[in-house]
């Protein structure tokens, strides 16, 4: 049996999660700390992929990465890199929102105290708020990984369904049912369910205090 969808899925999800974690946390810090005009609009934009059908996210990516698109020169369309971008965009709101909530749950007076003790604001943030929010941030990372692992719609549109190249587990399940190979489909379903269940358990563990 061809196990390439598992390794491909893990590779795509892993790279996408790193990307999501860094950018999502960055936006979370910006939104939790900075004040600027149009902030609520930016915030809504960052959450948008959560509410959009993944196929429309795929559509936008297709336009951007298409031959005439601004990122067309990269030549990423229908490669695993396009799958990474799709997973990144789709998982970003989860990471952003979870991390922001975690940062905002830390008592603001702790940072204030750190500043009165002679630490500049960034140092107070790194020493106090960040470690206290770390469990919530890690929960966001795991959620993002789970989401990336299950990404289907946008991936199908920008990366295609090329066996051994871009066929991740969700695409393998879809393909197997199309050709009536329920044994293969159910194998992958069990694999994804087990993975997802483990992630949810881990997230719950992190979020309980």
């Amino acid at each position, binding site marked *: 049996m061809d196990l390439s969808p598992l390794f491909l899925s893990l590779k795509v999800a892993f790279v996408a999660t790193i990307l999501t974690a860094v950018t999502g946390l960055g936006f979370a810090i910006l939104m939790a700390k900075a004040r600027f005009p149009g902030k609520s609009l930016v915030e809504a934009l960052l959450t948008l992929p959560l509410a959009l059908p993944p196929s429309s996210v795929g559509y936008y990516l297709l336009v951007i990465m298409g031959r005439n698109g601004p990122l067309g020169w990269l030549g990423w369309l229908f490669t695993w890199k396009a799958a990474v971008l799709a997973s990144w965009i789709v998982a970003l709101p989860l990471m952003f929102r979870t991390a922001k909530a975690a940062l905002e749950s830390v*008592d603001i*007076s*702790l940072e*204030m*105290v*750190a*500043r*009165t*003790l*002679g*630490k*500049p*604001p960034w140092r*107070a943030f790194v*020493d*106090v708020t960040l*470690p*206290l929010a770390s469990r919530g941030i890690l929960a966001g990372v795991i959620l993002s990984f789970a989401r990336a692992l299950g990404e289907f719609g946008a991936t199908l549109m920008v990366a295609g369904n090329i066996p051994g190249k871009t066929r991740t587990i969700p695409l393998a399940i879809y393909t197997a049912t199309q050709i009536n190979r329920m044994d293969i489909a159910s194998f992958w379903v069990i694999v994804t369910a087990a993975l997802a269940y483990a992630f949810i358990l881990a997230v719950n563990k992190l979020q309980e205090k």
Partner: protein
Amino acid sequence: MKPILVAHFSKKLGDFSLNVNLELGKEVLVLFGPSGSGKTSILRCISGLLTPDQGLIELNGQVLFSSDGKRVKANVPVHLRQIGFVFQDYALFPHMTVAQNILYGCKDRKKGKELLSILMEKMRLKGLEGHYPHQLSGGQKQRVAIARALMAEPKLLLLDEPFSALDRPVRRKLQSDLLRLQEELAIPVVLVTHDLEDAFAMGHKLAVVNDGRIEQIGEKEEVFRHPRTRAVARFTGARNILEGKVVGKDEGAVHIEWMGLVLEAPTQEATVGSDVVFCIRPEDVMIVRPDRPVREGIKENLLTGVIVREIHRGNHYSLFFKATSVETGRDYDFEISIPVHAYWRLDLKVGKEVMVSLKKSALHIIPEP
């Protein structure tokens, strides 16, 4: 003596505005006032956590904040002000041990270790170095918070309601420790409280804050004895605030007509013929012993009446005394505070008729009622 802290500033906070004028040397200033009067905001402005709209804040001659309302000329960031701030809820770092918390603001690691053991000793925290904040009692948390602030060697220490969450014995001990520490460090301390007893116990100077404004600031005794406004008299527990008319004034006394009686008050600013508001603290209303001839000195301002209600407050009684004027038939309620032993010796009870003396030296005319 040149003041160490100079703070003259104003700030609008919603529909509330803060107006502060204070100067302080190496002493403890208590900001006293009801909840919501702006005490905490005053501390935040001084520390830099809040930015005033305009004014001047100076510490040891260094300008920390200066603005004419249009342009900010100076605004030193919080972390460079060297002002220790102990928050009401302690704000200990929950992910750090007691030792890590205290050492957080330390500038010199080597010196810090030494200072740590001194502070642990002085703040009675020995043995708790490795504990986390959630393992400490309220009093211990407060001590850690204070030690942490002192480790950074502040030039000024601000304490927001430091005793509000502590029970009485813990509170007393911490108060005396703090006063001792302040003497040793010789830095100015500004302490916020809404508790009259804390204010009595802690302050050298007292500022009464009401509606964002400092109503009166001065030596503690002076503010308690001679409130400038009706609000100050009320907040500091003067209890008996009366209205009368100045009918005469001579070398030794001001005469105030009140309920058909003429009371003697010490010489003070007053215009003959004017209506005045005056006050007397409940502990300055003396019950005259019926079995003894009235002694010289306490036969001032005698009134007779009946005790109508009593509240036992532990070490003293609050008695409510109804005085009735023979001439006008009107009556007036006084509050009297009397130590428990005197209460028993005088065999007082509700319904008993007694004679009281309003101590002349304690009758104070409120200048700006």
